[in-house]
């Protein structure tokens, strides 16, 4: 299996111009509690894009992220993430290239942030020397020093969510799936932490408060009735004098978004 976005490929300007897809969904369907939360999602997200994912009803966006993360199985359709068709379980594969932070998963509450980061590194097969270099950086960036050795259940929800984000970034994933992350943080701190570095890192951020994500995303996807009702750049909202809110996004979808600039997606390997 070859990644669609290895460093060597990404270094080539021509490849960047071709806009390889980091996330590709075709006819993705998911049935939950006798209704279709996803009913044929077709979606392409280019490498390096920061996309806000919202949905009506709210559960659809979370369901899509859970499927992309490999936590749930789709009822139908296919998807491809970072060039891989499905989770391969290998330490060097899917788990290091795709990361998920969301309410569907949580580490054991008796683990401390330090133990979680160390455990994540070990299970992902990151060499000890690399772990010793990266973990302190993440601890500092996520301001976990004070609670580093305190169990999560005593450290509080904010530390738990920051630890989850730090653990997700430890493997330097190509695709980062964030389902309403860092809910307990102050907006300023939340914005700082969610400015995820990495030019070729693709971030999909599901949020029920789109307004607070304005500085973090470049595009928006609206799922309505389980399908993609809108996929547009954030700038399209401003062009029509709409604000980044559910109302504004819905209005843009109803008005008809500008045709998204589509160029052939590069599919390598898989």
């Amino acid at each position, binding site marked *: 299996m070859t990644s669609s976005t290895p460093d060597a490929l990404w270094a080539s300007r021509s490849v960047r111009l071709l806009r390889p897809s980091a996330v590709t969904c075709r006819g993705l369907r998911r049935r939950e509690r006798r209704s279709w939360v996803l009913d044929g999602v077709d979606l392409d997200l280019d490498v390096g894009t920061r996309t806000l994912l919202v949905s009506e009803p709210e559960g659809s966006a979370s369901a899509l992220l859970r499927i992309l993360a490999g*936590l749930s199985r789709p009822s139908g359709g296919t998807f491809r993430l970072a060039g891989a068709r499905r989770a391969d379980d290998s*330490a060097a594969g899917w*788990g290091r290239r795709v990361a998920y932070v969301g309410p569907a998963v949580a580490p054991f509450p008796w683990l401390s942030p330090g133990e979680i980061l160390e455990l994540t590194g070990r299970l992902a097969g990151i060499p000890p020397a690399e772990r010793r270099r990266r973990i302190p950086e993440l601890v500092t960036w996520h301001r976990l020093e004070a609670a580093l050795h305190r169990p999560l259940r005593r450290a509080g929800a904010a530390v738990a969510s920051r630890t989850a984000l730090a653990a997700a970034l430890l493997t330097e994933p190509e695709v980062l799936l964030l389902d309403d992350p860092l809910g307990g943080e102050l907006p300023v701190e939340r914005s700082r932490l969610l400015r995820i570095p990495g030019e070729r890192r693709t971030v999909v951020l599901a949020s029920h408060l789109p307004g607070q994500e304005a500085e973090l995303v470049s595009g928006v996807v609206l799922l309505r009735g389980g399908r993609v009702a809108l996929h547009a750049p954030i700038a399209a909202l401003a062009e029509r004098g709409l604000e980044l809110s559910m109302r504004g996004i819905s209005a843009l979808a109803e008005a008809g978004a500008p045709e998204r600039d589509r160029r052939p997606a590069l599919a390598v390997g898989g």
Partner: protein
Amino acid sequence: MIQTVVLAGLALRELWFSYRLLATLFVLLLAGAPAAILPHAATASLAGAPPSALTWYAVALGGSLAIVSALTAGAMAGGRRHGWLGWLALRPVPRPRLAIGWFLAWAGVLLVGLAFAALLAWVALSGSSLLLVGPAGFAAAMGAVAALGLMVIGLGLLIGSVLAPIPASLLALLLAGALGLVGFGGWLPANLPLPSGILPLIADLDLATRPVASALPLTGVALAIAAGLLLAAAAVLQRADL
């Protein structure tokens, strides 16, 4: 291999923090209590006589294994519900390895608990008219009980991979309890090597002539079924929503 060991260690710590480890050891130790407390008179062969201490010991072992199965199912289902197994699956840990890690942790606790229960019974009963078999015969019988325990742990993991915690615990308790009852009931053909058949064998150890030869086939069958249940749990976990 290292990943499996790490997972088994995590599962053990979870058992410790959730008090399931202590509960399991307590229940298994309690199973040895009838052998130590009740009078050591061989009365089973007399019509209308109360069951002997050995019979109560076998009954307590069956009951404790049913409880262990329920605890296993509850722990597995709880791990899924709280998102702990999902978090590990994203690390990335192959899902079948999660089932193996949890199985190893439970197996370790079970073996320690049963070893204490067996030691208690042996110390209490050796030399009495109830226990005429030697250490090898008694160890073979307890080995078969341990294999039966591994089987009910596999059953618990399988049920816990499918159902929510409370239904999973209740169903595991019911099925493992029914298994023990079937073993005692003697409703099945005598030549059918049902793993829970070890329980009546223990109850009749004072009459047993070849305990090792009787226990070994039951051990083999129980281990084979335990392996099958573990594989089934791994396969179910592979497809489950975490």
